[in-house]
Protein backbone atom coordinates (compact mmCIF):
# COMPACT_ATOMS: atom_id res chain seq x y z
CA UNK A 1 0.00 0.00 0.00
CA UNK A 2 2.91 2.32 0.78
CA UNK A 3 4.28 1.79 -2.71
CA UNK A 4 0.97 2.67 -4.33
CA UNK A 5 0.82 5.85 -2.29
CA UNK A 6 4.34 6.73 -3.39
CA UNK A 7 3.47 5.96 -7.02
CA UNK A 8 0.45 8.24 -6.80
CA UNK A 9 2.67 11.03 -5.55
CA UNK A 10 5.11 10.42 -8.40
CA UNK A 11 2.29 10.42 -10.94
CA UNK A 12 1.06 13.80 -9.70
CA UNK A 13 4.53 15.32 -9.73
CA UNK A 14 5.24 14.02 -13.20
CA UNK A 15 2.01 15.58 -14.46
CA UNK A 16 2.94 18.84 -12.78
CA UNK A 17 6.37 18.73 -14.41
CA UNK A 18 4.76 18.05 -17.78
CA UNK A 19 2.38 20.96 -17.29
CA UNK A 20 5.25 23.31 -16.44
CA UNK A 21 7.15 22.25 -19.57
CA UNK A 22 4.16 22.59 -21.87
CA UNK A 23 3.56 26.09 -20.55
CA UNK A 24 7.21 27.07 -20.92
CA UNK A 25 7.30 25.93 -24.53
CA UNK A 26 4.06 27.78 -25.28
CA UNK A 27 5.26 31.02 -23.67
CA UNK A 28 8.70 30.90 -25.29
CA UNK A 29 7.20 30.56 -28.76
CA UNK A 30 4.65 33.28 -28.07
CA UNK A 31 7.46 35.52 -26.83
CA UNK A 32 9.26 35.15 -30.17
CA UNK A 33 6.16 35.69 -32.31
CA UNK A 34 4.93 38.73 -30.37
CA UNK A 35 8.42 40.09 -29.65
CA UNK A 36 7.62 40.06 -25.95
CA UNK A 37 10.90 40.21 -24.00
CA UNK A 38 9.14 40.30 -20.62
CA UNK A 39 7.34 37.06 -21.29
CA UNK A 40 10.63 35.52 -22.44
CA UNK A 41 12.37 36.56 -19.22
CA UNK A 42 9.57 34.97 -17.23
CA UNK A 43 10.21 31.66 -19.01
CA UNK A 44 13.93 31.93 -18.28
CA UNK A 45 13.19 32.56 -14.58
CA UNK A 46 10.70 29.69 -14.46
CA UNK A 47 13.32 27.22 -15.66
CA UNK A 48 14.62 26.95 -12.08
CA UNK A 49 11.20 25.72 -11.06
CA UNK A 50 11.39 22.97 -13.69
CA UNK A 51 14.91 22.04 -12.60
CA UNK A 52 13.74 21.79 -8.98
CA UNK A 53 10.76 19.69 -10.02
CA UNK A 54 13.09 17.35 -11.92
CA UNK A 55 15.36 16.83 -8.90
CA UNK A 56 12.40 16.24 -6.61
CA UNK A 57 10.77 13.76 -8.96
CA UNK A 58 14.02 11.89 -9.43
CA UNK A 59 14.45 11.62 -5.68
CA UNK A 60 10.92 10.31 -5.27
CA UNK A 61 11.60 7.65 -7.90
CA UNK A 62 14.87 6.55 -6.32
CA UNK A 63 13.13 6.51 -2.97
CA UNK A 64 10.46 4.18 -4.34
CA UNK A 65 13.05 1.90 -5.97
CA UNK A 66 15.23 1.70 -2.87
CA UNK A 67 12.54 1.24 -0.26
CA UNK A 68 9.80 -0.81 -1.90
CA UNK A 69 11.56 -3.06 -4.42
CA UNK A 70 8.86 -2.68 -7.06
CA UNK A 71 8.53 -5.37 -9.72
CA UNK A 72 6.98 -5.80 -13.18
CA UNK A 73 4.84 -2.86 -14.30
CA UNK A 74 5.65 -0.69 -11.30
CA UNK A 75 9.36 -1.13 -11.90
CA UNK A 76 9.02 -0.39 -15.60
CA UNK A 77 6.91 2.65 -14.73
CA UNK A 78 9.56 4.06 -12.41
CA UNK A 79 12.31 3.49 -14.96
CA UNK A 80 10.20 5.20 -17.62
CA UNK A 81 9.47 8.13 -15.32
CA UNK A 82 13.18 8.58 -14.64
CA UNK A 83 13.86 8.79 -18.37
CA UNK A 84 10.85 10.95 -19.18
CA UNK A 85 11.77 13.23 -16.30
CA UNK A 86 15.11 14.07 -17.86
CA UNK A 87 13.52 14.48 -21.32
CA UNK A 88 11.10 16.99 -19.84
CA UNK A 89 13.90 18.83 -18.10
CA UNK A 90 15.76 19.09 -21.41
CA UNK A 91 12.62 20.42 -23.07
CA UNK A 92 12.43 23.03 -20.31
CA UNK A 93 16.06 24.01 -20.99
CA UNK A 94 15.35 24.30 -24.70
CA UNK A 95 12.33 26.53 -23.97
CA UNK A 96 14.54 28.76 -21.82
CA UNK A 97 17.07 28.87 -24.62
CA UNK A 98 14.32 29.79 -27.13
CA UNK A 99 13.37 32.58 -24.74
CA UNK A 100 16.92 33.88 -24.68
CA UNK A 101 16.72 34.07 -28.46
CA UNK A 102 13.36 35.84 -28.08
CA UNK A 103 14.95 38.52 -25.89
CA UNK A 104 17.68 39.02 -28.49
CA UNK A 105 15.25 39.10 -31.43
CA UNK A 106 12.95 41.56 -29.67
CA UNK A 107 15.84 44.01 -29.50
CA UNK A 108 16.41 43.83 -33.27
CA UNK A 109 14.31 45.67 -35.88
CA UNK A 110 11.17 43.76 -36.84
CA UNK A 111 11.71 44.27 -40.56
CA UNK A 112 13.48 40.98 -41.32
CA UNK A 113 10.84 38.30 -41.60
CA UNK A 114 11.46 34.84 -40.18
CA UNK A 115 12.10 32.76 -43.32
CA UNK A 116 9.92 29.84 -42.24
CA UNK A 117 6.57 29.06 -40.68
CA UNK A 118 7.68 29.27 -37.04
CA UNK A 119 4.10 29.31 -35.75
CA UNK A 120 3.21 26.16 -37.70
CA UNK A 121 6.37 24.30 -36.72
CA UNK A 122 6.03 25.08 -33.04
CA UNK A 123 2.37 24.16 -33.11
CA UNK A 124 3.34 20.70 -34.35
CA UNK A 125 6.02 20.38 -31.67
CA UNK A 126 3.57 21.46 -28.96
CA UNK A 127 1.05 18.93 -30.20
CA UNK A 128 3.69 16.21 -30.06
CA UNK A 129 4.61 17.07 -26.49
CA UNK A 130 0.96 17.17 -25.50
CA UNK A 131 0.20 13.85 -27.18
CA UNK A 132 3.28 12.13 -25.75
CA UNK A 133 2.19 13.11 -22.23
CA UNK A 134 -1.38 12.04 -22.94
CA UNK A 135 -0.04 8.74 -24.26
CA UNK A 136 1.83 8.31 -20.98
CA UNK A 137 -1.25 9.09 -18.89
CA UNK A 138 -3.50 6.73 -20.82
CA UNK A 139 -0.78 4.20 -21.77
CA UNK A 140 -1.98 4.82 -25.31
CA UNK A 141 0.37 3.12 -27.78
CA UNK A 142 -1.56 4.40 -30.81
CA UNK A 143 -1.17 8.00 -29.70
CA UNK A 144 2.53 7.38 -29.11
CA UNK A 145 2.80 6.20 -32.72
CA UNK A 146 1.22 9.48 -33.90
CA UNK A 147 3.94 11.38 -32.09
CA UNK A 148 6.61 9.45 -33.95
CA UNK A 149 4.94 10.15 -37.28
CA UNK A 150 4.85 13.86 -36.48
CA UNK A 151 8.56 13.80 -35.68
CA UNK A 152 9.26 13.05 -39.34
CA UNK A 153 7.25 16.13 -40.32
CA UNK A 154 9.27 18.30 -37.96
CA UNK A 155 12.55 16.88 -39.28
CA UNK A 156 11.45 17.77 -42.82
CA UNK A 157 10.55 21.31 -41.79
CA UNK A 158 13.94 21.69 -40.12
CA UNK A 159 15.74 20.58 -43.27
CA UNK A 160 13.74 23.16 -45.23
CA UNK A 161 14.70 25.89 -42.76
CA UNK A 162 18.36 25.03 -43.25
CA UNK A 163 18.00 25.72 -46.96
CA UNK A 164 15.95 28.88 -46.43
CA UNK A 165 18.55 30.26 -44.06
CA UNK A 166 21.35 29.44 -46.46
CA UNK A 167 19.53 31.38 -49.17
CA UNK A 168 18.94 34.27 -46.79
CA UNK A 169 22.67 34.59 -46.09
CA UNK A 170 23.57 34.30 -49.77
CA UNK A 171 21.10 37.06 -50.66
CA UNK A 172 22.29 39.41 -47.97
CA UNK A 173 25.40 38.49 -45.99
CA UNK A 174 24.57 41.25 -43.49
CA UNK A 175 21.57 39.21 -42.37
CA UNK A 176 23.87 36.40 -41.21
CA UNK A 177 23.43 37.13 -37.50
CA UNK A 178 19.64 36.94 -37.70
CA UNK A 179 19.76 34.01 -40.09
CA UNK A 180 21.83 32.00 -37.65
CA UNK A 181 19.47 32.92 -34.82
CA UNK A 182 16.51 31.72 -36.93
CA UNK A 183 18.26 28.46 -37.68
CA UNK A 184 18.80 28.08 -33.93
CA UNK A 185 15.06 28.45 -33.30
CA UNK A 186 14.28 25.68 -35.73
CA UNK A 187 17.05 23.50 -34.32
CA UNK A 188 15.74 23.90 -30.76
CA UNK A 189 12.19 23.08 -31.80
CA UNK A 190 13.47 20.05 -33.66
CA UNK A 191 15.32 18.89 -30.51
CA UNK A 192 12.14 19.34 -28.48
CA UNK A 193 10.32 17.15 -30.97
CA UNK A 194 13.03 14.51 -30.50
CA UNK A 195 12.52 14.52 -26.74
CA UNK A 196 8.76 14.22 -27.18
CA UNK A 197 9.45 11.26 -29.45
CA UNK A 198 11.68 9.66 -26.78
CA UNK A 199 8.82 10.04 -24.32
CA UNK A 200 6.46 8.37 -26.79
CA UNK A 201 8.94 5.54 -27.25
CA UNK A 202 9.28 5.05 -23.51
CA UNK A 203 5.48 4.84 -23.29
CA UNK A 204 5.53 1.98 -25.79
CA UNK A 205 8.27 0.14 -23.88
CA UNK A 206 6.45 0.69 -20.61
CA UNK A 207 3.15 -0.56 -21.95
CA UNK A 208 4.40 -3.51 -23.93
CA UNK A 209 7.16 -4.54 -21.54
CA UNK A 210 9.82 -4.70 -24.21
CA UNK A 211 13.10 -3.34 -22.85
CA UNK A 212 15.16 -4.03 -25.94
CA UNK A 213 14.26 -0.71 -27.49
CA UNK A 214 15.46 1.21 -24.45
CA UNK A 215 18.97 0.56 -25.53
CA UNK A 216 19.49 2.16 -28.96
CA UNK A 217 18.06 5.40 -27.72
CA UNK A 218 20.57 7.62 -29.45
CA UNK A 219 19.87 5.84 -32.71
CA UNK A 220 16.94 7.90 -33.88
CA UNK A 221 16.49 6.14 -37.19
CA UNK A 222 15.64 2.72 -35.82
CA UNK A 223 12.13 2.73 -34.41
CA UNK A 224 11.39 0.83 -31.22
CA UNK A 225 10.73 -2.82 -31.81
CA UNK A 226 7.18 -3.91 -31.60
CA UNK A 227 6.62 -7.37 -30.07
Amino acid at each position, binding site marked *: MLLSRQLEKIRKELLHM*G*ALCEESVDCSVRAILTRDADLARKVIDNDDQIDDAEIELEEECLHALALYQPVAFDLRYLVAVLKINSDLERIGDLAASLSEAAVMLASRPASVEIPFDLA*GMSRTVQEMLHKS*LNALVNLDVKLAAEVRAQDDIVDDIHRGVYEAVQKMIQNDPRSAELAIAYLGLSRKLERMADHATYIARDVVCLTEGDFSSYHPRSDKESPAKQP
Partner: protein
Amino acid sequence: MKIPPHELAKALADATAHAAGLSRENAELQSVLGAMREAVVAVGPDERITRVNAAAAPLLGMTADSARGRLLGESLRHPVITRVARAGLSGKVDEGEMEIFVPAKNASPGGSSALARRLFQVRGTPMPGRTGAVLVLHDVTQLRRLEVVRQDFVANASHEIKTPVAAIQGVVETLADAPEMNETDRARFMDILTRQTSRLSKIIEDLLTLSRIERGLAVDLAGFSPEPLAPIGSAAVEACAPRANAAKVLIEADFDAGLALPCDPSMIERALVNLLENAIKYGGSGGRVAFRIARENNQAVLEVRDFGAGISSEHLPRIFERFYRTDKARSREQGGTGLGLSIVKHIAESHGGRVSVESSPGAGATFRIHLPLAPPPAALPA
Protein backbone atom coordinates in the same frame (compact mmCIF):
# COMPACT_ATOMS: atom_id res chain seq x y z
CA MET B 1 -33.46 -4.72 23.52
CA LYS B 2 -36.45 -4.79 21.27
CA ILE B 3 -37.72 -2.03 19.02
CA PRO B 4 -41.48 -2.07 18.64
CA PRO B 5 -42.50 -2.93 15.06
CA HIS B 6 -44.46 0.27 14.50
CA GLU B 7 -41.39 2.41 15.36
CA LEU B 8 -39.25 0.33 13.03
CA ALA B 9 -41.78 0.85 10.24
CA LYS B 10 -41.82 4.59 10.89
CA ALA B 11 -38.02 4.81 10.83
CA LEU B 12 -37.97 2.87 7.58
CA ALA B 13 -40.57 5.19 6.02
CA ASP B 14 -38.58 8.24 7.17
CA ALA B 15 -35.37 6.85 5.71
CA THR B 16 -37.09 6.03 2.42
CA ALA B 17 -38.57 9.51 2.17
CA HIS B 18 -35.19 11.01 2.99
CA ALA B 19 -33.48 8.91 0.35
CA ALA B 20 -36.10 9.90 -2.22
CA GLY B 21 -35.53 13.55 -1.35
CA LEU B 22 -31.79 13.12 -1.75
CA SER B 23 -32.05 11.45 -5.11
CA ARG B 24 -34.47 14.16 -6.25
CA GLU B 25 -31.94 16.80 -5.15
CA ASN B 26 -29.19 14.92 -6.90
CA ALA B 27 -31.20 14.79 -10.13
CA GLU B 28 -31.90 18.51 -9.81
CA LEU B 29 -28.23 19.24 -9.28
CA GLN B 30 -27.32 17.14 -12.29
CA SER B 31 -29.72 18.99 -14.56
CA VAL B 32 -28.58 22.39 -13.26
CA LEU B 33 -24.95 21.45 -13.98
CA GLY B 34 -25.91 19.90 -17.29
CA ALA B 35 -27.60 23.11 -18.45
CA MET B 36 -24.45 25.16 -17.90
CA ARG B 37 -22.40 26.30 -20.85
CA GLU B 38 -19.29 26.46 -18.66
CA ALA B 39 -17.40 23.29 -17.92
CA VAL B 40 -17.61 22.25 -14.26
CA VAL B 41 -15.16 19.79 -12.72
CA ALA B 42 -15.27 18.77 -9.06
CA VAL B 43 -12.23 17.19 -7.45
CA GLY B 44 -11.75 15.41 -4.16
CA PRO B 45 -8.93 16.01 -1.63
CA ASP B 46 -6.72 13.51 -3.51
CA GLU B 47 -7.01 15.65 -6.70
CA ARG B 48 -9.11 12.97 -8.31
CA ILE B 49 -12.17 13.98 -10.31
CA THR B 50 -15.44 13.28 -8.51
CA ARG B 51 -17.94 14.82 -10.89
CA VAL B 52 -18.01 16.65 -14.23
CA ASN B 53 -20.90 18.22 -16.12
CA ALA B 54 -21.88 17.67 -19.74
CA ALA B 55 -19.96 20.71 -20.98
CA ALA B 56 -16.72 19.42 -19.44
CA ALA B 57 -16.78 15.99 -21.06
CA PRO B 58 -15.64 17.10 -24.55
CA LEU B 59 -12.74 19.06 -23.05
CA LEU B 60 -11.55 15.95 -21.27
CA GLY B 61 -12.08 13.90 -24.40
CA MET B 62 -14.14 11.28 -22.56
CA THR B 63 -17.55 10.67 -21.09
CA ALA B 64 -18.43 12.08 -17.71
CA ASP B 65 -18.49 8.58 -16.24
CA SER B 66 -15.03 7.57 -17.38
CA ALA B 67 -13.58 10.88 -16.18
CA ARG B 68 -14.62 10.10 -12.61
CA GLY B 69 -11.71 8.83 -10.51
CA ARG B 70 -8.98 10.14 -12.78
CA LEU B 71 -6.32 12.55 -11.53
CA LEU B 72 -7.12 16.12 -12.53
CA GLY B 73 -3.68 16.49 -14.12
CA GLU B 74 -4.31 13.45 -16.29
CA SER B 75 -7.20 15.22 -17.97
CA LEU B 76 -6.38 18.92 -17.75
CA ARG B 77 -2.68 19.58 -17.62
CA HIS B 78 -1.69 23.15 -16.96
CA PRO B 79 0.09 24.83 -14.02
CA VAL B 80 -2.80 27.28 -13.64
CA ILE B 81 -5.53 24.68 -13.14
CA THR B 82 -3.29 22.73 -10.75
CA ARG B 83 -2.67 25.89 -8.76
CA VAL B 84 -6.35 26.85 -8.74
CA ALA B 85 -7.41 23.33 -7.71
CA ARG B 86 -4.84 23.14 -4.90
CA ALA B 87 -5.92 26.56 -3.65
CA GLY B 88 -9.53 25.35 -3.65
CA LEU B 89 -8.57 22.21 -1.74
CA SER B 90 -6.83 24.30 0.90
CA GLY B 91 -9.94 26.44 1.36
CA LYS B 92 -9.13 29.42 -0.84
CA VAL B 93 -10.83 30.88 -3.93
CA ASP B 94 -8.45 31.37 -6.82
CA GLU B 95 -8.69 32.03 -10.55
CA GLY B 96 -6.54 32.36 -13.61
CA GLU B 97 -6.29 31.95 -17.36
CA MET B 98 -4.80 29.10 -19.31
CA GLU B 99 -4.43 28.12 -22.94
CA ILE B 100 -4.53 24.38 -23.48
CA PHE B 101 -5.00 21.75 -26.16
CA VAL B 102 -8.40 20.08 -26.14
CA PRO B 103 -9.71 17.40 -28.49
CA ALA B 104 -10.99 19.12 -31.64
CA LYS B 105 -14.77 19.12 -32.04
CA ASN B 106 -14.73 17.58 -35.48
CA ALA B 107 -12.22 14.89 -34.51
CA SER B 108 -13.16 11.61 -36.10
CA PRO B 109 -13.38 8.81 -33.53
CA GLY B 110 -11.03 6.24 -35.09
CA GLY B 111 -8.72 8.69 -36.85
CA SER B 112 -5.72 10.62 -35.64
CA SER B 113 -6.33 12.75 -32.60
CA ALA B 114 -6.89 16.30 -33.84
CA LEU B 115 -6.32 18.98 -31.24
CA ALA B 116 -7.63 22.52 -30.88
CA ARG B 117 -6.09 25.28 -28.85
CA ARG B 118 -8.50 27.07 -26.51
CA LEU B 119 -8.20 29.80 -23.92
CA PHE B 120 -10.02 29.29 -20.61
CA GLN B 121 -10.75 31.34 -17.55
CA VAL B 122 -10.60 29.00 -14.57
CA ARG B 123 -12.13 29.64 -11.17
CA GLY B 124 -11.77 27.33 -8.21
CA THR B 125 -13.98 27.36 -5.12
CA PRO B 126 -13.56 25.17 -2.05
CA MET B 127 -16.32 22.80 -1.04
CA PRO B 128 -17.49 23.03 2.58
CA GLY B 129 -15.34 21.17 5.09
CA ARG B 130 -12.42 20.82 2.68
CA THR B 131 -14.04 17.84 1.06
CA GLY B 132 -12.95 18.99 -2.36
CA ALA B 133 -12.97 21.88 -4.81
CA VAL B 134 -15.17 22.95 -7.70
CA LEU B 135 -13.50 24.24 -10.86
CA VAL B 136 -15.44 26.25 -13.41
CA LEU B 137 -13.89 26.67 -16.87
CA HIS B 138 -15.13 29.39 -19.15
CA ASP B 139 -14.01 29.30 -22.81
CA VAL B 140 -12.95 32.84 -23.74
CA THR B 141 -11.13 32.04 -27.00
CA GLN B 142 -13.67 33.71 -29.27
CA LEU B 143 -14.19 36.63 -26.91
CA ARG B 144 -10.48 37.36 -26.78
CA ARG B 145 -10.21 37.15 -30.55
CA LEU B 146 -13.02 39.67 -31.05
CA GLU B 147 -11.43 41.98 -28.51
CA VAL B 148 -8.20 41.97 -30.51
CA VAL B 149 -10.12 42.65 -33.74
CA ARG B 150 -11.92 45.58 -32.17
CA GLN B 151 -8.81 47.11 -30.64
CA ASP B 152 -6.93 46.74 -33.91
CA PHE B 153 -9.82 48.29 -35.81
CA VAL B 154 -9.87 51.43 -33.66
CA ALA B 155 -6.08 51.74 -33.74
CA ASN B 156 -5.84 51.15 -37.48
CA ALA B 157 -8.79 53.36 -38.41
CA SER B 158 -7.38 56.30 -36.49
CA HIS B 159 -3.98 55.71 -38.04
CA GLU B 160 -5.34 55.47 -41.60
CA ILE B 161 -7.26 58.71 -41.23
CA LYS B 162 -4.57 60.55 -39.36
CA THR B 163 -1.86 59.97 -41.97
CA PRO B 164 -3.47 61.92 -44.84
CA VAL B 165 -4.75 64.58 -42.45
CA ALA B 166 -1.22 65.13 -41.11
CA ALA B 167 0.11 65.42 -44.67
CA ILE B 168 -2.58 67.93 -45.61
CA GLN B 169 -1.90 69.93 -42.46
CA GLY B 170 1.79 70.08 -43.25
CA VAL B 171 1.18 71.27 -46.80
CA VAL B 172 -1.36 73.89 -45.77
CA GLU B 173 1.00 75.31 -43.15
CA THR B 174 3.85 75.46 -45.65
CA LEU B 175 1.67 77.22 -48.19
CA ALA B 176 0.44 79.71 -45.59
CA ASP B 177 4.00 80.51 -44.50
CA ALA B 178 5.32 81.07 -48.02
CA PRO B 179 3.00 83.35 -50.00
CA GLU B 180 5.80 84.06 -52.49
CA MET B 181 6.31 80.44 -53.47
CA ASN B 182 7.25 79.74 -57.08
CA GLU B 183 4.89 78.01 -59.49
CA THR B 184 6.58 74.58 -59.60
CA ASP B 185 6.73 74.19 -55.82
CA ARG B 186 3.17 75.35 -55.51
CA ALA B 187 2.07 72.84 -58.12
CA ARG B 188 3.89 70.07 -56.27
CA PHE B 189 2.20 70.94 -52.98
CA MET B 190 -1.18 71.17 -54.69
CA ASP B 191 -0.58 67.72 -56.10
CA ILE B 192 0.08 66.35 -52.60
CA LEU B 193 -3.10 68.05 -51.37
CA THR B 194 -5.17 66.49 -54.15
CA ARG B 195 -3.75 63.03 -53.58
CA GLN B 196 -4.21 63.08 -49.82
CA THR B 197 -7.73 64.51 -49.88
CA SER B 198 -8.82 61.95 -52.46
CA ARG B 199 -7.30 59.19 -50.33
CA LEU B 200 -9.14 60.49 -47.29
CA SER B 201 -12.39 60.65 -49.17
CA LYS B 202 -11.82 57.13 -50.50
CA ILE B 203 -11.37 55.79 -46.97
CA ILE B 204 -14.50 57.56 -45.78
CA GLU B 205 -16.45 56.37 -48.80
CA ASP B 206 -15.36 52.77 -48.16
CA LEU B 207 -16.28 53.03 -44.48
CA LEU B 208 -19.71 54.34 -45.44
CA THR B 209 -20.18 51.53 -47.95
CA LEU B 210 -19.25 49.01 -45.31
CA SER B 211 -21.62 50.39 -42.73
CA ARG B 212 -24.38 50.59 -45.34
CA ILE B 213 -23.92 46.91 -46.23
CA GLU B 214 -23.69 45.96 -42.59
CA ARG B 215 -26.83 47.85 -41.66
CA GLY B 216 -28.85 46.44 -44.51
CA LEU B 217 -27.34 43.03 -43.88
CA ALA B 218 -28.93 40.39 -46.02
CA VAL B 219 -30.01 42.25 -49.13
CA ASP B 220 -33.66 41.50 -49.69
CA LEU B 221 -32.93 39.00 -52.43
CA ALA B 222 -36.61 38.43 -53.08
CA GLY B 223 -36.65 41.89 -54.64
CA PHE B 224 -34.11 40.87 -57.30
CA SER B 225 -34.75 38.66 -60.27
CA PRO B 226 -32.03 36.16 -61.23
CA GLU B 227 -29.15 38.02 -62.87
CA PRO B 228 -26.72 36.27 -65.20
CA LEU B 229 -23.25 36.44 -63.65
CA ALA B 230 -21.13 36.48 -66.81
CA PRO B 231 -22.06 40.08 -67.83
CA ILE B 232 -21.32 41.26 -64.28
CA GLY B 233 -17.91 39.60 -64.56
CA SER B 234 -17.27 41.26 -67.92
CA ALA B 235 -18.22 44.66 -66.53
CA ALA B 236 -15.74 44.16 -63.66
CA VAL B 237 -12.98 43.19 -66.11
CA GLU B 238 -13.73 46.29 -68.18
CA ALA B 239 -13.58 48.52 -65.14
CA CYS B 240 -10.16 47.12 -64.25
CA ALA B 241 -8.78 47.11 -67.80
CA PRO B 242 -6.91 50.45 -67.63
CA ARG B 243 -5.18 49.45 -64.43
CA ALA B 244 -4.36 46.01 -65.78
CA ASN B 245 -2.89 47.48 -68.95
CA ALA B 246 -0.80 49.93 -66.99
CA ALA B 247 0.59 47.11 -64.86
CA LYS B 248 1.00 44.83 -67.91
CA VAL B 249 -1.22 42.20 -66.37
CA LEU B 250 -3.39 39.97 -68.50
CA ILE B 251 -6.81 39.09 -67.10
CA GLU B 252 -7.83 35.63 -68.29
CA ALA B 253 -11.61 35.40 -67.93
CA ASP B 254 -13.44 32.09 -67.99
CA PHE B 255 -17.16 32.41 -67.29
CA ASP B 256 -19.92 29.82 -67.17
CA ALA B 257 -22.45 31.70 -69.30
CA GLY B 258 -25.43 29.80 -67.92
CA LEU B 259 -25.04 30.86 -64.30
CA ALA B 260 -27.61 33.24 -62.86
CA LEU B 261 -28.81 34.04 -59.38
CA PRO B 262 -30.81 36.74 -57.65
CA CYS B 263 -28.38 39.45 -56.55
CA ASP B 264 -27.63 43.12 -56.57
CA PRO B 265 -25.45 43.32 -59.72
CA SER B 266 -23.78 46.62 -58.79
CA MET B 267 -22.65 45.20 -55.44
CA ILE B 268 -21.34 41.98 -56.96
CA GLU B 269 -19.48 43.99 -59.56
CA ARG B 270 -17.97 46.14 -56.85
CA ALA B 271 -16.76 43.04 -54.96
CA LEU B 272 -15.24 41.60 -58.14
CA VAL B 273 -13.53 44.88 -58.98
CA ASN B 274 -12.01 44.93 -55.49
CA LEU B 275 -10.66 41.39 -55.91
CA LEU B 276 -9.30 42.09 -59.41
CA GLU B 277 -7.66 45.33 -58.32
CA ASN B 278 -5.98 43.55 -55.43
CA ALA B 279 -4.78 40.77 -57.71
CA ILE B 280 -3.29 43.34 -60.09
CA LYS B 281 -1.77 45.40 -57.29
CA TYR B 282 -0.28 42.68 -55.12
CA GLY B 283 -0.02 39.72 -57.47
CA GLY B 284 0.78 41.63 -60.65
CA SER B 285 4.34 40.38 -60.70
CA GLY B 286 2.90 37.10 -62.00
CA GLY B 287 1.91 38.86 -65.24
CA ARG B 288 -1.57 37.37 -65.33
CA VAL B 289 -4.72 37.00 -63.28
CA ALA B 290 -7.13 34.09 -63.73
CA PHE B 291 -10.76 35.11 -63.25
CA ARG B 292 -13.28 32.30 -63.23
CA ILE B 293 -17.03 32.12 -62.65
CA ALA B 294 -18.24 28.56 -62.36
CA ARG B 295 -20.75 26.29 -60.69
CA GLU B 296 -19.56 24.02 -57.91
CA ASN B 297 -22.28 21.83 -56.44
CA ASN B 298 -24.99 24.18 -55.23
CA GLN B 299 -22.84 27.26 -55.42
CA ALA B 300 -21.69 29.84 -57.86
CA VAL B 301 -17.98 30.35 -57.30
CA LEU B 302 -16.41 33.63 -58.38
CA GLU B 303 -12.70 33.10 -58.25
CA VAL B 304 -9.81 35.51 -58.76
CA ARG B 305 -6.37 33.99 -58.76
CA ASP B 306 -3.02 35.73 -59.07
CA PHE B 307 0.44 34.30 -59.52
CA GLY B 308 2.42 36.79 -57.49
CA ALA B 309 4.25 36.71 -54.19
CA GLY B 310 1.44 35.12 -52.20
CA ILE B 311 0.47 35.70 -48.59
CA SER B 312 1.99 33.93 -45.61
CA SER B 313 -0.27 31.75 -43.54
CA GLU B 314 -0.40 33.83 -40.37
CA HIS B 315 -2.23 36.63 -42.22
CA LEU B 316 -4.87 34.49 -43.91
CA PRO B 317 -7.33 34.19 -41.00
CA ARG B 318 -7.42 37.97 -40.54
CA ILE B 319 -7.09 39.25 -44.07
CA PHE B 320 -10.79 40.10 -44.44
CA GLU B 321 -10.76 42.32 -41.36
CA ARG B 322 -11.15 46.05 -41.76
CA PHE B 323 -7.81 47.82 -42.12
CA TYR B 324 -5.85 44.62 -41.65
CA ARG B 325 -2.57 44.90 -43.54
CA THR B 326 -0.16 42.13 -44.30
CA ASP B 327 2.62 44.53 -45.14
CA LYS B 328 1.91 47.93 -43.68
CA ALA B 329 4.39 49.99 -45.63
CA ARG B 330 3.78 48.42 -49.01
CA SER B 331 0.01 48.36 -49.28
CA ARG B 332 -0.36 51.96 -48.16
CA GLU B 333 2.14 52.92 -50.81
CA GLN B 334 -0.10 51.15 -53.32
CA GLY B 335 -2.93 53.47 -52.36
CA GLY B 336 -5.25 50.91 -50.80
CA THR B 337 -7.71 51.95 -48.12
CA GLY B 338 -7.40 48.70 -46.19
CA LEU B 339 -11.12 48.13 -46.58
CA GLY B 340 -11.39 46.43 -49.97
CA LEU B 341 -11.47 42.81 -48.82
CA SER B 342 -13.70 43.62 -45.90
CA ILE B 343 -16.21 45.07 -48.35
CA VAL B 344 -15.97 41.93 -50.49
CA LYS B 345 -16.69 39.80 -47.44
CA HIS B 346 -19.70 41.85 -46.43
CA ILE B 347 -21.14 41.86 -49.91
CA ALA B 348 -20.81 38.08 -50.10
CA GLU B 349 -22.40 37.65 -46.70
CA SER B 350 -25.24 40.02 -47.46
CA HIS B 351 -26.05 37.69 -50.38
CA GLY B 352 -26.08 34.68 -48.07
CA GLY B 353 -22.66 33.59 -49.30
CA ARG B 354 -19.13 33.62 -47.98
CA VAL B 355 -15.55 34.34 -48.98
CA SER B 356 -12.45 32.20 -48.80
CA VAL B 357 -8.77 32.59 -49.50
CA GLU B 358 -5.97 30.21 -50.26
CA SER B 359 -2.36 31.16 -50.58
CA SER B 360 1.18 30.35 -49.71
CA PRO B 361 4.30 32.44 -50.08
CA GLY B 362 5.62 32.31 -53.64
CA ALA B 363 2.56 30.50 -54.99
CA GLY B 364 0.16 33.39 -55.55
CA ALA B 365 -3.23 33.84 -53.93
CA THR B 366 -6.74 32.67 -54.77
CA PHE B 367 -9.76 34.57 -53.49
CA ARG B 368 -13.22 33.11 -53.89
CA ILE B 369 -16.75 34.36 -53.40
CA HIS B 370 -19.20 31.50 -52.85
CA LEU B 371 -22.82 32.36 -53.51
CA PRO B 372 -25.61 29.85 -52.93
CA LEU B 373 -27.62 28.94 -56.03
CA ALA B 374 -31.27 28.24 -55.46
CA PRO B 375 -31.66 24.45 -55.74
CA PRO B 376 -33.29 23.54 -59.07
CA PRO B 377 -36.95 22.59 -58.60
CA ALA B 378 -36.26 19.01 -59.69
CA ALA B 379 -33.84 18.56 -56.81
CA LEU B 380 -36.50 19.40 -54.25
CA PRO B 381 -37.97 16.42 -52.48
CA ALA B 382 -41.42 15.62 -53.78
